[in-house]
């Protein structure tokens, strides 16, 4: 610890901070070992952390079963996993079931199609995140990509076999629900927020207030139930559109109400002088809103906006209860397979990693703004 010595002044006359505060050792002394209580707490937590990490490492890596042989019937033989149960993870269940978890009951030989869809979604997110693509053409890219995804999933044209929506499942469903949901809910939310602040259109304001309060007062689950069970009852005989679309609409309406309140927060936080200056220059309402108010207001609310986005990305998993086959549902079904009974932890970990990857990417991106 030579750096602890001789803090004093150097010939240039500048006074340096005492060396004891510098470096990782200095930091640890100041924060972890500055009294006997904190030293004890540090040691206790350190011990628990070490035990936890080594325990997990043993279970997940050292004693893990990575693959199992096939038995005579051609199905995986989980005996090795059963033996290791409790001491080692059974990653063989993932190796065996990953395509089911990712793509659900989509026809096995056609699963390259949802796989491409997932890549298209990810590509779309990356392109949209890059500032240099923030041009008018981006809207076309979105339309094109979403159309391509529709064609790939449904098929029926271009020599692709038709796949019913009932057999879609897994990650594409989660991405479809959240991407279409937030992409359509966001513009709706901006309009509702603007409507709610309108001073000279009392009817519009009223509608917006009622919409937000009504939707916010109801749990998402009940809205999904209404969309899946009650809504078809009110429709005329024979006229029915598919369950995914109904859930999608319920999801858009729900997300828009929450996002509208976030956007309204931004509108309220903006100094009044900005709107006054725009008015004084003679800008029309839409020019004022589109060029002055929204660019600043939305920037102010990026953190709560991303917070809501992340929340809704995870909330798409609630479609489980109305029988739509999203990522989480697919995982649940995989867990219930007789051959792989008792390995839900491994599947849950993989599901968590997938959700975390998307949510963390969103969070990371918003912090860079």
């Amino acid at each position: 610890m030579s750096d602890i010595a001789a803090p004093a002044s150097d010939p240039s006359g500048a006074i340096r901070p005492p060396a004891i505060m510098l470096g990782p050792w200095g930091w640890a002394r100041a924060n972890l070992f500055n009294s006997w209580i904190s030293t004890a707490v540090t040691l206790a937590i350190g011990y628990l952390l070490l035990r936890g990490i080594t325990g997990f490492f043993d279970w997940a890596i050292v004693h893990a079963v990575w693959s199992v042989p096939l038995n005579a019937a051609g199905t995986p033989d989980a005996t090795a996993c059963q033996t290791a149960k409790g001491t080692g993870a059974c990653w063989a269940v993932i190796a065996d079931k990953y395509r089911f978890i990712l793509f659900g009951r989509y026809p096995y030989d056609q699963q390259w199609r949802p796989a491409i869809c997932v890549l298209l979604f990810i590509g779309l997110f990356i392109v949209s995140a890059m500032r240099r693509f923030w041009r008018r053409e981006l809207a076309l890219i979105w339309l094109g990509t979403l159309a391509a995804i529709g064609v790939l999933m449904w098929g029926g044209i271009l020599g692709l076999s038709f796949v019913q929506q009932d057999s879609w499942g897994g990650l594409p469903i989660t991405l479809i629900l959240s991407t279409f949901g937030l992409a359509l809910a966001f513009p709706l939310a901006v309009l509702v927020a603007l409507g709610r602040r309108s001073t000279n259109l009392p009817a519009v304001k009223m509608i917006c207030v009622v919409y937000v309060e009504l939707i916010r007062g109801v749990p998402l689950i009940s809205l999904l139930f209404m969309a899946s069970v009650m809504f078809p009852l009110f429709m005329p005989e024979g006229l029915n559109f598919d369950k995914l679309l109904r859930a999608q609409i319920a999801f858009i309406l729900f997300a828009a109400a929450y996002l509208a309140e976030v956007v309204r927060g931004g509108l309220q936080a903006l100094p009044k002088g900005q709107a006054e200056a725009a008015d004084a220059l003679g800008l029309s309402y839409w020019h004022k809103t589109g060029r002055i108010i929204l660019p600043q207001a939305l920037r102010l609310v990026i953190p709560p906006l991303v917070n809501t986005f992340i929340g809704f990305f995870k909330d798409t998993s609630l479609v489980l209860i109305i029988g739509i086959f999203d990522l989480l549902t697919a995982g649940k079904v995989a867990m219930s397979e007789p051959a792989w009974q008792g390995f839900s932890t491994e599947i849950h970990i993989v599901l968590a990693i997938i959700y975390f990857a998307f949510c963390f990417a969103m969070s990371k991106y918003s912090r860079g703004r």
Partner: protein
Amino acid sequence: MSQAETTSHFVAPPGAPPAILLDRVNKWYGQMHVLRDVSLSVAEKERVVVCGPSGSGKSTMIRCINRLETHQQGRIVVDGTELTDDTRALDTIRREVGMVFQSFNLFPHLTILENCTLAPIWVRKMPKAEAEELAMSYLTRVKIPEQAKKYPGQLSGGQQQRVAIARALCMKPKIMLFDEPTSALDPEMIKEVLDTMIGLAETGMTMVCVTHEMGFARQVADRVVFMDRGEIVESGPPNDLFENPQTDRLQLFLSQILRGH
């Protein structure tokens, strides 16, 4: 104050309609009567300075001229167009009336140049190149062309206010309104803004300016209007008004202003 009295202090060219006419304008905030029978006529190319203690209604009055505030009684006619709920008339007026605010109100997410070209491009439908050329000429006139690519936050208060003046001028307004343009500035920056305004006054711009800068009023104003408690108490050429106040209220106000300086 009757209209006859307020208008008697200037000689309008015969037949020329006033640039701004306020005729017995009244306004209330709830129960509070903030403008009481305010009548004022501003001729083309006239420079009017409005002064008065805070809360006297001078800002409210000037903000009524481009309808940032609405009046409840009386008539306001600007450049021959009466201010009503008709939005088309309002658009016409706002195009011809520039305004400079106490707190600058530049758009912080746009560069100085974009601040200046926004309205000409979107309201006047001017081609971008032309709007930029125009903006640069006005930025040169307020002596900050070299800041064009910066953002408002990178400029000093005085520079920001000069940009705000240039931004308003880019719309080629017939009338300029100033609402306490130097009140938010540090003392050393007041002069650069006042100099810009004096330069503007020399071009023959019709100006209505709410300010406490008595030196500016003496140098530039054709007429000074003194307001107190929502009404116009006195008005006249600056020297008459300052040397020979007729009312106790103006005397009191002037003594407070002078003591403050």
